[in-house]
């Protein structure tokens, strides 16, 4: 399809076939790491493309480039044959391209109408022409079937109602192309159907739509063609009617799993960490698992499934509402990060810059930060002690770069090693790693994997949370899969195929149910999985 298109352009008969929004060879790298590698997408007027892919496959980058939020490093775009080079979102809007964000961005104190027309509020004698915006807003709201009064403030409206306003806002720009970035992530079944009705109506009016979603069932329902990205490259382009959900999953994860970082099965049956009935209202519920000494235990699931929230609670960064945590068989009360550390639970958080490291301080100071009391004698800690402690770990972790300069001037990989070193000053009983290789180059990644494995071999119970399926499956002895705040299954290494994990992670959560009645749903789910696999 793309090739034929290229041909027609070269042949100079672009008139017919260049209609629509055409992206050719879009690429983008961040700090030298390519996240998008030459993606071609052709969006014709009046069609819907369903865009699928794993976390980090490049879906959001693609939509951000099309919507002018980020600039591509390579490639070109045309609209109806005219070059289209947006450098900021307003350029995109001028060209009739609108993006509906995954997260709803509203100013709660302003009225619905003001939110729809924010940034271009019409004025009459110097003040906002309220009658006009209210009337016009009402038209667009009716277009999306919303009954919301445009004069009321957004604060207090349901998420679904806000989603309608978001769509109305996009429509008020009279766009010719709309990108929906996971609009249904926050919607229930009936609301999603409503959004689909909107999309069908828009298509009728000749609007071209890109619909991004993790819910494969619904994407089949709404899209004409399905485009799949993996590792920043386009790996599939099918008519929606000709592809099954299983094939989609396979295309999303289908890579060669050459991975040699699995530690041998743990020798001991001793339990390092035991979690029972851990729940936090509205966030996650009914989390039960054991991690053995020497075991690497993976947490898989989509972003937003509740994985990070669960491990943060175990480490004491957040508070649980219910549940029991045992470390080496003893019940521990974890009220804050300090009590977690004292119980032997260390956590390498997912956000290195916001939660892990103080970038203006030196690497050595960062490493010893949690341990200054332990490292001081007679209440005094010296620079010498800090430096020598850090240097020992530098060798252990193969940190390349100086530890006496601000850690922010090290590369991402070395920063991550410093962060890991910080939690190895005292050997933890349980080590939690949340996205341990995010923003890290391949070489440092390997060192981190080897270190994780070496730590497990010394008897540490390790939890690895990762959005990279390859990473979590490659490292772990067992994998817990979450979706919608619930534990879907714990899979043994043999059963934890990418397809099985992805299917569980994508499992549709009925919006109303999960956190109220977790037990039934969960039991049911686990049974189905068993039968499926047998």
């Amino acid at each position, binding site marked *: 399809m793309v090739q034929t298109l290229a041909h027609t352009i070269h042949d100079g008969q672009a008139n017919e076939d260049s209609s629509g929004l055409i992206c050719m060879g879009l690429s983008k790298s961040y700090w030298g790491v390519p996240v998008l590698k030459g993606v071609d997408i052709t969006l014709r007027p009046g069609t819907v493309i369903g865009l699928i892919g794993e976390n980090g496959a490049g879906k959001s980058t693609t939509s951000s480039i099309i919507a002018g939020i980020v600039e591509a490093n390579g490639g070109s775009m045309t609209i109806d044959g005219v070059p289209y080079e947006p450098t900021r979102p307003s350029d995109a809007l001028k060209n009739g391209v609108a993006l509906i964000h995954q997260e709803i961005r509203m100013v709660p104190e302003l009225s619905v109408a003001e939110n729809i027309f924010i940034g271009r509020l019409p004025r009459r004698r110097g003040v906002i022409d309220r009658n006009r915006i209210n009337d016009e807003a009402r038209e667009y709201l009716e277009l999306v079937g919303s009954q919301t009064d445009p004069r009321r403030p957004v604060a207090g409206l349901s998420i679904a109602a806000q989603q309608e306003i978001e769509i109305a806002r996009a429509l008020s720009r009279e766009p010719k192309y709309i990108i929906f970035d996971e609009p249904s992530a926050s919607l229930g079944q009936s609301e999603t159907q409503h959004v689909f009705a909107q999309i069908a109506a828009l298509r009728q009016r000749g609007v071209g739509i890109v619909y991004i979603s993790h819910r494969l069932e619904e994407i089949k329902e709404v899209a004409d063609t399905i485009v799949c990205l993996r590792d920043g490259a386009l790996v599939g382009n099918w008519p929606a009617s000709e592809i099954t959900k299983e094939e989609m999953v396979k295309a999303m994860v289908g890579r060669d799993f050459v991975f040699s970082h699995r530690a041998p099965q743990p020798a001991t049956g001793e339990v390092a960490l035991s979690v029972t009935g851990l729940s936090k209202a509205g966030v996650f519920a009914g989390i039960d698992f054991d991690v053995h000494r020497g075991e690497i235990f993976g947490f898989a699931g989509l972003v937003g499934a509740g994985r990070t929230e669960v491990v943060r609670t175990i480490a004491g960064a957040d508070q649980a509402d219910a549940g029991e945590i045992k470390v080496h068989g003893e019940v521990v009360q974890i009220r804050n*990060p300090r009590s977690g550390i004292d119980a032997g639970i260390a*956590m390498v958080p997912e956000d290195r810059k*916001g939660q892990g490291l103080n970038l203006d301080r030196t690497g050595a100071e960062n490493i010893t*930060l949690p341990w200054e009391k332990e490292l001081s004698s007679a209440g005094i800690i010296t620079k010498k002690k800090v430096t020598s402690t850090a240097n020992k770990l530098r060798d252990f972790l193969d940190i390349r770069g100086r530890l006496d300069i601000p850690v922010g*001037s090290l590369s991402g990989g070395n920063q991550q090693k410093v962060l890991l070193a910080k939690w190895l000053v*005292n050997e933890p009983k349980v080590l939690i790693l949340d996205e341990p290789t995010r923003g890290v180059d391949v070489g440092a990644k390997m060192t981190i994997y*080897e270190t994780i494995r070496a730590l497990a071999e010394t008897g540490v119970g390790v939890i690895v949370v990762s959005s990279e399926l390859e990473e979590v499956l490659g490292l772990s002895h067992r994998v817990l899969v979450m979706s919608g705040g619930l534990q879907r299954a714990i899979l043994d290494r043999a059963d934890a195929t990418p397809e099985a994990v992805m299917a569980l992670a994508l499992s549709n959560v009925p919006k109303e149910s999960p956190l109220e009645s977790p037990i039934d749903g969960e039991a049911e789910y686990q049974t189905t999985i068993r039968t499926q696999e047998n």
Partner: protein
Amino acid sequence: MAIIDRNVTPPRPDSSSAHDEVAPASAGSVNTNRFRRIMSQIPGPLIGLIVIFVALSFLSPYFLTPRNLLNILSQVSAVGVMSVGALLIILLGGIDLSVGSVLALSSMSMAAMYKMAGWPFEVALLAGLIVGALVGLINGILTAYGKLQPFIATLATMSAAAGLALFITNGNPITGFPDWFIAITATSILGVPIEGVILVAIFAIAAFWLKFRPSGRALYAIGGNEEVARLSGLPVRRAKILVYTIAGLLAAVAGLLVTSRLDSAQPTAGAADLLNVIAVVVIGGASLSGGSGSLLGTFVGLLIIGVLNNGMSLLNVSANLQPVVIGAVIAAAVLTDRKSSRRHT
């Protein structure tokens, strides 16, 4: 320590492969970085101090006499004591607007308990210090547990403390204190006035705490990134409460020094000190966004303010113009500071 001592070495991937190195920094630029960092920490203000010092030595024959220099130390003692507390709070990323009011309130409380309630002077003096610490404690609780922005919390206590100080005597000063108390600010040890000794001692103790004690070093971590500090197990709220309480206590100490010097407790004393205190800390190179600053820098900032004020008085610069000069110095200090300390990203 177990992992290190056990000598477990994880197998290494081929290290000849393109491995990541220090991103932008070679050895040469590391040295420049460090040089810049040191430059931005202390010597920037220090150079300014030396320039002002030399200039004033030429401009006024009286400036460079030992008596005048010791006089400067006395003049800055109250502001100096408060600026120690202010630096600690600013390191945490906070601010304390209440110092001047707390100075007045503790001074008036002490005087009232001694002269009006008839308590023994030593007890009244202790009570004055406790009042200051209590207001600081309230600031700490409001910010740490009440989650009020420090600006707002201390704005509230500033107003309340100023009002209470006036309320005690309906705005009248209280005079007549024991001779030994007056003597604190009128005596010298080996030529150095006692208040100067107190000032330097407080700076030294606080500097030791910040440099060598884990709880003091924690202030840098908390001010640098509170969430990182919290997840590292540091007691963030306890540190905030402690530091605000210390700042309140130091404001009370400053109040006693002022009372001793004037032999009078004034309900409006210290009202003009707040801006000086913050100016000292800022000129000394601390960042109001927290996490960076040093007591050495603060001390230099204090001397700059003290020397400038003293010199301008000697040169008969109008008292109304002096704040204009101070304002210019603040702007200049922060502008040069920001230029020399580029953020690493």
